[in-house]
């Protein structure tokens, strides 16, 4: 049983950056990737993102579940766009270079393929960076950095706690499902959907009940130690910004600025190689 996603302790230059700097940089980076459809910038971001993922000494295997999930989503996304809007590229770029036809209205054009390339690059520009952020930032540092960029600390801490409890809940789920299997609850594909839904409830109800117990204990423990007493709190894990942090944030800010400038220069979000 591998955790869904988690902090991975494998020292690297990315790990050494402070949480807040990483959060700000990650947000700027993804904003840049979201605002632009300029293929040149997207390509740069995608290459940079993959490089960062590697620099953080992460492997695909560390995030295999999330990676697989996103891969499926990406393929589906592209397929649906082509299925429902095969002429989307043409309407964006204003020209029509037909390559071949798949029958009916589904004609493959250079413009459409180019549009799909952009979609693909967008995924590659954002996902590795987000994953690198999640896997190199400890939940408590994550909470501290959320707080630092202005999120209320009670909210920030709750988010971090939720992240922290995911492995525990996973373990509970595993144990409960084993015990219920012993009583004859089948979760395999052999059963009908309705039966499987019923079975799922036999696992979910105990899971929810035992999680409620857990929540009561933790909230008492926190309150008894003064959580929520003041408007502010200090953080044991907080670290002052280093030169590297500042550099990372400036670089990402420049990337975001580049995205905005390119939008202006291209006269829209798209870079058009066809005219």
């Amino acid at each position, binding site marked *: 049983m591998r955790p869904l996603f988690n902090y991975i302790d494998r020292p690297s230059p990315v790990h050494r950056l402070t949480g807040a700097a990483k959060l700000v940089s990650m947000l700027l980076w993804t904003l840049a990737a979201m605002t632009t459809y300029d293929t040149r910038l997207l390509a740069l971001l995608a290459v940079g993102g993959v490089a960062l993922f590697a620099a953080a000494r992460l492997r695909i295997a560390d995030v295999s579940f999330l990676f697989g999930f996103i891969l499926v989503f990406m393929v589906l996304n592209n397929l649906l766009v082509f299925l429902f809007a095969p002429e989307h590229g043409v309407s964006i770029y204003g020209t029509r270079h037909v390559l071949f036809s798949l029958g009916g209205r589904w004609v493959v054009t250079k413009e459409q393929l180019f549009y799909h390339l952009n979609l693909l690059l967008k995924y590659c520009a954002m996902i590795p960076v987000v994953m690198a952020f999640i896997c190199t930032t400890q939940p408590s540092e994550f909470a501290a950095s959320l707080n630092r960029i202005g999120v209320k600390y009670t909210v920030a801490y709750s988010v971090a706690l939720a992240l922290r409890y995911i492995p525990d809940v996973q373990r509970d789920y595993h*144990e*409960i499902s084993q015990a219920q299997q012993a*009583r004859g*609850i089948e979760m395999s594909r052999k059963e009908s959907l309705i039966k499987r839904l019923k079975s799922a409830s036999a696992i979910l109800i*105990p899971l929810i009940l035992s999680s409620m117990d857990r929540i009561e204990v*933790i909230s*008492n*423990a926190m309150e008894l130690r003064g959580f929520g007493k003041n408007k502010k*709190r200090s953080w044991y894990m907080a670290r002052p910004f280093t030169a590297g942090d500042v550099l990372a944030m400036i670089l990402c800010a420049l990337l975001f600025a580049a995205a905005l400038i390119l939008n202006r220069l291209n006269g829209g979000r798209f870079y058009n190689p066809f005219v």
Partner: protein
Amino acid sequence: MNDPIIRFEHFSFQYHAQAEPTLHDVCLSVRKGEKLLICGPSGCGKSTLAHCINGLIPFSYKGEIGGSLTIAGRESRELGIFEISRTVGTVLQDTDGQFVGLTVAEDIAFALENDCVGEPELHERVRTAAALVGVEDHLSHAPGELSGGQKQRVSLAGILVDDVEVLLFDEPLANLDPATGKQAIELIDEIQKETGAAVIIIEHRLEDVLHRHVDRVVLMNGGRILADTTPDELLAGELLRENGIREPLYITALKYAGVSVTADKRPDHIETIELSEEDQARVRAWFQSVPPAPEKPETPVLLAAEGVRFAYPNGREALAGLSLAVREGELSAVVGTNGAGKSTFCKLLCGFETQQEGTLRFAGQDMAELSIKERADRIGYVMQNPNQMISQTMIFDEVALGLRTRGVPEEEIRRRVEETLKVCGLWPFRSWPVSALSFGQKKRVTIAAILVLEPQIIILDEPTAGQDYRHYTEIMEFLLALNRRGVTVLMVTHDMHLMLEYAGRAIVFSGGRLIADAPCAEILTDETVIRRASLKETSLYTLAQRCGIDDGQAFVQRFIDYEREAVRT
């Protein structure tokens, strides 16, 4: 005498959701430097009292307060929970659940962070508190890398970072093995001497707390304080027994032997109790007079493990070269520290995991081919926490679940469920929703849900965890009755009383290996096994030594036999 830090005066409390008050007319004072034990059966109001002291009542759990409770001279309801927490530091029962921080250091720092303590004071105070409880070398560890005892130390450090005047421990022994529990009591004692704070321990395991000196014991039942006196006075009387608190075993043995236990003999500790020559002679005479129990005829082997090895995917070897046999009709204990391989062994038996080497046989048949479901027809497994098993809203449906999934006709289901409910003493509740039951009753429901499948062996993980003496006795007598009907019972447990009183023998794991498999009296008097399995020597053994009985093991065995024969039947 200094002024009391905590003073209850004719205090009462009623939860909004309940029809009756939980606390009645409580009068109690605690002074600085005092050490207090509050004991009583489940539902006696001791947890509610603890909540009043730390401010969870009335600030988190609402209700009606009568009378007065002052903390450091101020009325508690006029303070806030945060102000109270400056005076009273609480260590909760659940060693995992109260671990707030992601690492040891952050958990200790939590209260300081909330007080906006900045650098470098923050790191300095965390280091000091960690050193006080001896976890300074683990500051960067995550909770998963710590043992239960270490987690408790961290929680204690987390309240010691503030200079609190009262340390409140809510059932500190509940989740610890016997040896760790003993260390916890010693640590609490040392910390008190170092800080001079008042210590309040809420616990029903009297003997274990009395391992170190306690100034006063407060006995509660039915929401009232029945006694507030020295341990010596309380042990001399009958109040403990009458109110469902287990006396220390040596006291019980002395009473069996006809020795009068009076307060002036200072009975609060086995090492210091004054036993006259006459008292010792009585104990020796009693020892001679109890006949040894007849040996049970050997029954066929029901379950056998041969050379079993199992390693988890991360490479950790959990079991190695394990061979053992469980015979038909046994009632045995499986003991050992956390990570010794007990739970892994159970998982292999149930088929949740598969061993890499060796075979498991049931009644001579290799179980390798059997599915989880098929094994469950032979081997029933009851988890520790009933909330992790119960999925239906009605008791009847919960017990019927296993039969329904096996496609048994509804008529037969009704017959078998009703029969099982009767056996389990749940018949009066058959049409109740599960949520209306107490923890102990829920436990019974989970046992019933397994029993209805008519397994030949039933394995229970900590069957009596979190139960007071009365409920403990109820559950164990029930298991004993099942056992007499021919069901083989295996209990995974830390509870030494349970081993002594009920288990025929103990199977002891340590580091993934079987280190002992012998009658409990032998295990609990064997120093090496005790140390390796994190158990504790029974006070009966010390009593035997103090009375000049050389064969301590035989004395423990006689005590067990006497309890089973003379007392129980």
